[in-house]
């Protein structure tokens, strides 16, 4: 695993990736700092982070698109399979390298509150609490990016899907409210989600009966629930999206609440997507 970690770091710093990522992040945060802290003379640094987390939509896919897709394309994944290291070690090594690339511009950003504190009253706990949350948010999105990269051989696809997914995540709550504020709307959205799940099951197991069975059971269950008590469905989808959205949980920190449940959530997201990435790599071996 250390071997993979060192190798990936060397790759990132010998190519432009690490520098482009760092530059973009610093530029965005810099612009935010200029707008909020300097021009508007607001002393809350956390608002800057709230503004800049939009940049993840672009830089995370660019950073993570080649992590696994490139190995597949160059056929170097065969080398990784034949070496005496486990797939988990490979994924964790790669992920830690990505985190390291992320931490470097972040370390620079850590200095900003201190600098601003020289010129005004900056309440440091909120600022640093938000920076920590910003780090964990980025880490979770990077784990998501690793998983997306493991699904395809084509870096472009990986980047495109990554942008789409993170963008969707960013706007998920407003989208959900727009689409399904009524109970019936929620039911429809959930049924669509179940259908997508059934399609995924079908693709993975090639057993149509299993996919139809699960899909049917879930939709029937939800229909029954709907007829029993439709108020439960009111605002259900916006609720779910709020709980699932990585960005929503970050805003709590900006508002001044250091929410441990959010940290726990981010950690579980990281674990889940790294786990899925390992599964995805293993699955290729089974062909």
């Amino acid at each position, binding site marked *: 695993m250390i071997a993979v970690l060192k190798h990936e770091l060397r790759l990132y710093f010998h190519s432009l990736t690490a520098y482009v990522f760092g530059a973009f992040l610093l530029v965005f945060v810099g612009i935010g700092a200029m707008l909020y802290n300097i021009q508007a003379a607001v002393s809350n640094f956390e608002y800057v982070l709230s503004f800049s987390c939009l940049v993840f939509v672009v830089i995370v896919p660019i950073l993570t698109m080649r992590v696994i897709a490139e190995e597949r394309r160059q056929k170097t994944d065969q080398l990784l399979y034949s070496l005496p290291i486990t797939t988990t070690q490979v994924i964790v090594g790669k992920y830690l390298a990505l985190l390291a690339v992320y931490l470097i511009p972040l370390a620079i950003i850590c200095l900003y509150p201190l600098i601003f504190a020289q010129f005004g009253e900056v309440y440091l706990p909120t600022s640093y609490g938000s920076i920590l949350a910003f780090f964990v948010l980025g880490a979770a999105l990077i784990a998501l990016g690793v998983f997306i990269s493991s699904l395809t051989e084509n870096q472009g696809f990986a980047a495109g899907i990554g942008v789409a997914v993170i963008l969707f995540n960013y706007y998920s709550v407003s989208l959900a409210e727009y689409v399904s504020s009524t109970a019936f709307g929620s039911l429809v959205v959930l049924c669509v989600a179940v259908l997508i799940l059934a399609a995924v099951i079908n693709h993975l197991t*090639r*057993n149509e009966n299993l996919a139809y069975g699960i899909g049917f059971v879930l939709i029937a269950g939800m229909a029954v629930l709907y007829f029993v008590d439709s108020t439960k469905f009111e605002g259900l989808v916006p609720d779910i999206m709020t709980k699932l959205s990585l960005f929503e949980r970050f805003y709590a920190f900006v508002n001044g609440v250091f929410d441990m449940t959010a940290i726990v959530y981010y950690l579980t997201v990281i674990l889940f997507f790294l786990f899925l990435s390992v599964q995805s790599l293993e699955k290729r071996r089974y062909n």
Partner: protein
Amino acid sequence: MKKKNLPAAGAEAKQAENRKEAESRRKAENRREAENRRKAENRREAENRRARNRNALRGGSYSLLISAVVLAILIAVNVFASALPANLTQYDISSSQLYSITSNTKVVVNALEEDVTIYWIVQSGEEDDIIENLLSRYESLSDHIEVVKRNPDVYPTFAE
């Protein structure tokens, strides 16, 4: 003349018949052989197909199953974490201490002996984060306190 030809013709006819018999026997044998071979092959292919599907099912559903199990465990962890009382999991880092409860409040709440229900009149989806946080802290301070939301659209006359 005819007599001479007849036995000759008979012999020829018999030869032809024998030949035809031998051929049909051979054909039947070949047919049986091919059928046996085909049956054996079909059996083998069906077995292989079942083994393959079992493997695909095994491979695909194994990873699906284990992903579902892992997902369930992670969801359980999250549910557990959010079920914990708010003062354990949420720390106030705001500059104006918006979310902290002053010691005065704590004294009052600890002295509560009767049950108190706080009705929050708010539309679902319009809850303010700060108020939500504060009320959940009150709830976790004492067993006597309960917060209930009332949607003014559904219960318009409640405030009266």
